[in-house]
């Protein structure tokens, strides 16, 4: 058997006419015009505005102490990388909420790659391997990062809410990664603690934790909504 023979040998089948009529009647009843989703570019731009607003607002509220102490080389490495990863996360979030759109990689892969890229950059820049008050300072930073990730996730959801996620968990992970990157950006702008392990563990942890939380909320939230629709 050759692949091209496949359609011919598969048994033909067609739905009943009565069923098709029933579907047509139920779908044309009270049919109203619907405004299509905005273009993907416009949605991505909106998400970038949300990200930028949250990152700047967060750092302005807490103080730009980290940015002031960073060398120009470190700034040139960290912030363009964050911007690039945010762009990818925004595009992944928009695609995840549009059925049948291109998805070159799974949002979980993007989240892991984002952590890997940022970890590599931090390893290049920061050399102080002392621990200091590792846990108390770390917990405070992680809490701050997550606190700024939450409004980013909420505003991102407002931008994306008209979409339809065929993979709810993936959509949540994409949006959570974006929110986590906003939290990480706030920390890089604000935190003057340049100890390597502090940044690698507590700052970076904001990204996977935000992705996991938002992923879970999307998954269980949409599941409940779907169950309500079915009733």
């Amino acid at each position, binding site marked *: *058997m050759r*692949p091209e023979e*496949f*359609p011919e*040998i*598969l*048994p*033909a*089948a*067609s*739905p*009943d006419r009565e*069923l*098709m009529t*029933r*579907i*047509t009647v*139920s*779908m*044309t009843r009270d*049919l*109203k*015009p*619907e*405004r*299509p*989703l905005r*273009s*993907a570019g416009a949605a991505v731009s909106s998400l970038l505005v949300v990200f930028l607003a949250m990152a700047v607002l967060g750092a302005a509220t807490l103080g730009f102490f980290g940015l002031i102490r960073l060398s120009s080389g470190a700034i040139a490495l960290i912030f363009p990388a964050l911007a690039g990863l945010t762009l990818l996360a925004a595009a992944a979030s928009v695609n995840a*909420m*549009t*059925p*049948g*759109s*291109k*998805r*070159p*990689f*799974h949002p979980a892969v993007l989240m892991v790659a984002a952590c890997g890229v940022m970890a590599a950059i931090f390893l290049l820049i920061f050399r102080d391997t002392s621990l200091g008050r590792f846990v108390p300072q770390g917990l405070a930073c992680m809490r701050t990062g997550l606190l700024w990730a939450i409004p980013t996730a909420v505003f991102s959801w407002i931008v994306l809410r*008209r*979409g*339809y996620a*065929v*993979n709810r968990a*993936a959509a949540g992970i994409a949006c959570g990664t974006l929110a986590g990157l906003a939290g990480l950006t706030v920390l890089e702008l604000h935190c003057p603690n340049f100890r390597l392990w502090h940044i690698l563990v507590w700052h970076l942890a904001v990204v996977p934790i935000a992705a996991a939380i938002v992923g879970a909320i999307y998954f269980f939230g949409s599941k409940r909504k*779907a169950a309500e*629709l079915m009733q």
Partner: protein
Amino acid sequence: MQPAAELEQLMVRYQQGDAAGIAELIQRLSPQLYRFFLAQLVSRRYADDLLQETWLRIHQARHTYRPGEPVLPWIYALARHVRVDHYRRTRRREDRERQVDELPVTPAVQPAASAGPDVQAMLQQLPESQREVLVMLKVSGMSIEEVARATSSSVGSVKQKAHRAYERLRRLYEA
């Protein structure tokens, strides 16, 4: 096969509230969606249910179609979602039923009465992801790019799955 531009026009008319547009789409796409479900080894009764549920989902999500984008990946992404939901529901129900009474699981699809190879039986031996890709490519007539969009995967992954499915079918056919 459906000329893509015509489907796009019908979809836009449907979004604009034109009943004739959706009626035409249902007439054109229902047979191939039905075959898609049947080839995924569901029974005719379930295929009817899945077809209805898919159109309901299409109706609810019709605003998420962006004019100018290909229609088939959008439709099949929703159809696939419906099928996966159905699969999960069925599996949960079967698990519960098995706990109550150890009943054997009956095959869902009646084998086709034909002198040729039993394609349904061969399909049953393919992993689900390969079967899905094969059915979209060969039954629904979608391109590799369209299948990649519908299944939320990369073009390379679709090519690999299709290649493995063909190889396996060929071996089964020759055996």
